């Protein structure tokens, strides 16, 4: 007798993330049907239903599912931003009415990409692809969210003590390198994010954010003036009076933009 007989397989735990109730209902129905049909093989179980990205991030942290059925267009956090915030690798199937994100979904190694409205058969195909991956023990590849060329990050996401801070880039005054973290200064508030300053620089629009120094990225809108401080060393002065060092290469980058 084989020990790993199919009936012994645990159910596939699936989390539904969609801001539209009818879309969640459809996924629930499809999953229930699938469960009835494949009970012998373990079937599926609905781990959670989330109406927005925040909920999804929270529920994944509490109890990670085996599969994420993820909508892309959602308020506050879109599907890709949810993935960026997850602290673990999860197989993802995107469900969306927008075909234009398919390339990006492929880049974050989504298991599948379902275009709404999709049929039950097409849905089963996506689930089976997931099951197949799981059986082969393939670790789901690490998603590396990438943006389409020519577009830039518009919101910076920071996890802070179980909370998610969404910081629109327009509100960022400057970013400062702090070892493995970057300190994000936005008005009175400061946030620490585990990221390198260089990777942040790459994600931001170079016409609006300038690496003025090895350790600083400045939001151009916040630059009030540049003062010569000593020979070849300058400081950038912000409206609130803060002073940031400007390196020689940083100064030439600034001059190019101004």
């Amino acid at each position, binding site marked *: 007798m084989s020990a790993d007989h199919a009936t012994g397989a645990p159910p596939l735990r699936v989390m539904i993330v969609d801001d539209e109730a*009818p879309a969640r*209902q459809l996924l629930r129905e499809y999953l229930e049907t699938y469960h009835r049909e494949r009970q012998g093989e373990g079937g599926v179980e609905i781990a959670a239903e989330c109406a927005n990205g925040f909920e999804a991030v929270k529920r994944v942290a509490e109890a990670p599912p085996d599969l994420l059925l993820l909508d892309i267009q959602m308020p506050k956090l879109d599907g890709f931003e949810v993935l960026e915030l997850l602290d673990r690798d999860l197989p993802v199937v995107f469900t969306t009415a927008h075909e234009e994100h398919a390339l990006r979904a492929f880049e974050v190694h989504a298991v599948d990409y379902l275009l709404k*409205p999709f049929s039950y058969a097409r849905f089963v195909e996506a689930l089976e692809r997931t099951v197949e991956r799981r059986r082969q023990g393939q670790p789901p590849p690490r998603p590396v969210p990438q943006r389409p060329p020519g577009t830039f990050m518009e919101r910076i996401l920071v996890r802070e003590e179980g909370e998610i801070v969404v910081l629109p880039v327009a509100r960022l005054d400057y970013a400062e390198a702090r070892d493995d973290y970057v300190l994000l200064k936005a008005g009175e508030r400061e946030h620490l994010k585990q990221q390198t300053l260089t990777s942040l620089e790459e994600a931001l629009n170079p016409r609006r954010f300038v690496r003025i120094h090895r350790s600083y990225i400045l939001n151009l809108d916040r630059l009030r003036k540049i003062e010569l401080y000593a020979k070849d060393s300058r400081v950038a002065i912000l409206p609130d009076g803060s002073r940031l060092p400007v390196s020689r290469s940083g100064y030439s980058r600034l001059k190019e933009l101004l």
Partner: protein
Amino acid sequence: MHPILAHRRRLTLYLWAWLPVGFLLAVLAVVSGPGAVPGAAGEGLGWWLALALTVPPTVAYGLLNLSSWYLCRTLPLGSLRPGEENPSVLRLGLAHFLAAGLSTFMWLVLGVLWARLLALLPWPSGLAAAPETFAALFPLFVAAGVLLYLLAAAVHYLLMAFEASRAAEARALESRVLAREAELRALRAQINPHFLFNSLNSISARIGSNPPAARHMCISLADFFRGSLQAGAREAVTLGEELALAERYLEIEEARYGERLRLRREVDPDALQLTVPPLILQPLVENAVGHGIAHLLEGGEIRLTVEQRPEAVVIAVHNPRDPDAPPSRGAGIGQNNVRNRLERRYGDGAWLAVSATVDAYRAEVHIPREGVSR
């Protein structure tokens, strides 16, 4: 462009038309008096002489009279362009009679030269009398010259009117085609495919658990699309119809967003019968949902207001928005559609104004009062 010279077929036809005039003149010459054309009563040579003296100069006169167009153009009968003053009847008559006299004089000179040329021909000998015969026919030629000139001028005026009306027709047709094209383009842009896909997904979701709701949604969707297409094909709709279409749209979106989408209507009931260009409200409502409500976790209320002011009717869509939402792309398409439609209909008289605060957005259409009454 000369209306006759510019077209080879017209020119041929025109010159052919002068041939019978030449024959008629020959007949008149023969019958205008015994002895006017020697031998006409007898051997028939007089007929030849009459034909030789009248037909070729008449056709040449036809050519000469093509120039009357230049005078006709400078002195149009009933100006076709507004703002231009019509020439007075006196000036018109005087100019044309002078031109008629000049043309006739030139014709006579031509005739004399032609008669001399005929006399020089060795055969037939009967033509030797051509110069004297022509001199005897002077009164006839003078009368015919003036009349024929006036006739040619009339023909030119007629052709000018014909061409002008044809050009106006072509312009009207062209502007209709352009308007239609713009309408179609607008409609194509307006019927957002993602709206359709998401609605179909909502229908698909309801089919299993709530078939009547699914059917209801199919019907709403069909009503909305039919309404859009019909409205798009019309010049104007009532504000009531326009509001109904926008509400149909919102009803479908409500099935997707549920509690998150709420609608408040503050409409002056007297305004419902006013007429507006079609599809000015729906694109604004679509923006309010797509760029406002869709980005809010808890959704919000869309407010439709119609207000009658002394000088204008103001139709506005208000919606809350997420202060942190990235700058929206695509809101401009719908707004441009509305702007184009307003401009085509009212010129500068109507406009779309948008204003945004941190957490609210408002799009307002101003239409002048005189533009909306039935």
